């Protein structure tokens, strides 16, 4: 009986301690609850409303009915009209649209001349996300009753498709840059958060407070070594991706480093904020996981942003990882520049500045 009594004593003690550690207790309940709700909705591979552009060189009744038919599928959402194919390609590079539908000037001729079974138009598709590109490739064979074409069943696709940046549709091309976002999220947030909380736990902070050291100096001094660690991780991941998985590195190094530095800064400030809230290293780790899971699932790393319902998209927009996944895929695969992606660049900059202010204000130099 002593055996079970002693086990019961330990179990009871653990429960008591757990119930006093409010944050841990909250996480025990909140992590499954929120994550399940979010991801039950978010993980959805039926992609809708992919942002695309249109180059309509025909400007005819036929071209308008094709556009209406494409729009009616609800798979795509026409957000841009480009006058030329060149400008449309630039739009794909900058990440404005995922694909462009090009309807040639001789569209009506092609439509009338069904026997030659020429494709009516062409899809130019950003291949950097395979799930998105396969959804678009599905549109190649869409039926077009509106044109009352007589060539059903079709011998050839209605549209021709060209995949940019990842023509073989290889998964690593999509995954490796995204993985950079996930790994940096995990290490950067966790390292900073625990580094400061560890000093709180060990009592080092009490000594530091009585010295002339300022909060901001402490924060920045803590961050700098991790910036270097983050850059080292970036180099390892991209080198491995390039030489082992044959991921093309199309972007200029300065742009890649710039984008990564922005993301590292944002992640580190998030880690600092966590460190001002968490009292123990365990709490800091749990809070990191709380940020990490949505960063994996909602950032576009595993599942495309377009497949998520609105609320999940709002949450995704608030995560630095979402913006970095867009940026790093753009820079690495499409050779986009940071100036092409001002919204994402601006978000990360703003996030860092606001976060640094919050962390510094929260880390008061007193024990009150």
């Amino acid at each position, binding site marked *: 009986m002593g055996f079970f009594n002693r086990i019961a004593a330990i179990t009871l003690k653990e429960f008591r301690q757990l119930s006093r550690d409010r944050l841990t207790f909250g996480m025990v309940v909140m992590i499954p609850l929120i994550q399940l709700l979010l991801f039950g909705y978010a993980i959805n591979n039926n992609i809708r409303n992919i942002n695309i552009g249109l180059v309509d060189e025909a400007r005819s009744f036929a071209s308008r009915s094709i556009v209406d038919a494409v729009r009616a599928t609800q798979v795509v959402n026409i957000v841009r009209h480009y006058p030329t194919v060149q400008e449309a390609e630039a739009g794909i590079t900058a990440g404005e649209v995922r694909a462009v539908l090009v309807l040639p000037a001789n569209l009506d001729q092609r439509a009338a001349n069904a026997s030659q079974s020429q494709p009516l138009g062409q899809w130019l598709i950003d291949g950097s996300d395979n799930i998105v590109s396969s959804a678009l490739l599905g549109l190649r064979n869409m039926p077009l009753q509106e044109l009352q074409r007589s060539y059903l069943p079709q011998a050839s696709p209605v549209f021709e498709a060209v995949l940019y940046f990842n023509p073989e549709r290889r998964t690593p091309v999509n995954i490796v840059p995204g993985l950079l976002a996930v790994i940096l999220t995990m290490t950067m947030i966790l390292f900073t958060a625990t580094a400061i909380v560890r000093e709180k736990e060990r*009592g080092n*902070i*009490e000594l*530091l407070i*009585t*010295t*002339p*050291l300022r909060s901001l100096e402490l924060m920045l001094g803590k961050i700098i070594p991790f910036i270097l660690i983050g850059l080292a991780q970036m180099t390892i991941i991209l080198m491995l991706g390039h030489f082992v998985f044959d991921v093309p590195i199309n972007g200029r190094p300065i742009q890649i480093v710039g984008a990564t530095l922005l993301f590292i800064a944002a992640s580190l400030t998030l880690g600092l904020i966590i460190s001002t809230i968490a009292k123990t290293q365990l709490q800091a780790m749990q809070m990191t996981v709380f940020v990490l899971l949505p960063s994996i699932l909602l950032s576009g790393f595993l599942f495309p942003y377009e497949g998520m319902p609105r609320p999940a998209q709002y949450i995704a927009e608030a995560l630095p990882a979402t913006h970095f996944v867009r940026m790093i895929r753009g820079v690495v695969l499409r050779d986009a520049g940071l100036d092409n992606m001002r919204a994402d660049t601006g978000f990360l900059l703003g996030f860092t500045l606001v976060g640094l202010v919050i962390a510094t204000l929260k880390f008061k130099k*007193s024990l009150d």
Partner: protein
Amino acid sequence: MNNIAIEARELTRRFGSYIAVNKLDLRIPRGTIYGFLGPNGSGKSTTIRLLTGLLTPDSGTINILGLQLPAQAEQLRTRIGYMTQKFSLFGDLTLQENLQFIGRIYGLGRSVMKQRIEELLTLYELADRRHLLADELSGGQKQRLALAAATIHKPELLFLDEPTSAVDPENRRDFWEKLFDLSDSGTTILVSTHYMDEAERCHYLAILEAGVKRADDTPQNLMANMDANVVEISGPNLRQLKQQLLQLGQVKSVAQQGVQLRVLVNRAVTDPVSQLRRDCVALQPSHQLALVRPSLEDVFVMCTGDRS
């Protein structure tokens, strides 16, 4: 003002409904070693944290080295040193790396720092340990390292929060030699303790209990002006005798010390030895009674109202 290092008036700090420090007045002259003596939870640490600016008082004023707290706390930082109760340097840095870190924080120049670290390593007998991790040091060595770190910038005022709670008596004596050296060179030292022998070494002493200052003077005056006389009783059946003595109104406290009872008798009683013989029926002729010189512990017991 110039010869006063610390002046506090009506200093009060609450934690929720608990009053940790209650209307404390302090006036500590420069160049002295001033002790806070009190049981655990008497507000010693909280007072030190208030005086170093780590905590903000709920009410009251603090003036340290001519600066107002908490408003001018940042200006004070380079002029004070603080040795925490718990070892708060970095266990995973070597002794020398720890000192270099603290030196850089205080903005010491490269050559000044190098010289200062050598001085401190020699002074605190740590030179041969300089490449050991702080975690590998013994209790006494850790404490000397902490003192070296707290004095690296030659502060005018040094706060020590129970500095010797983790070391043996011999190390404690050595440590106090170092404190007297610092005091001799003009440093004002405020030290909290619950050891009587340590308290007795201070120039001035404040006895704290439950956040209130019960007494405040030199140890000699505290003992001389105590509100009780001390009678030592030896003989048989001391446990029962103790209970009997505690019934008497003039007896403030009875404590057993080995084969003796130490009885504190109200000072108003002119001849305590004969008075006790008259009043206490349990006292037998075989009991030896003697009037003895008060100790600091007696003062402490009187102040903290202990009747055990």
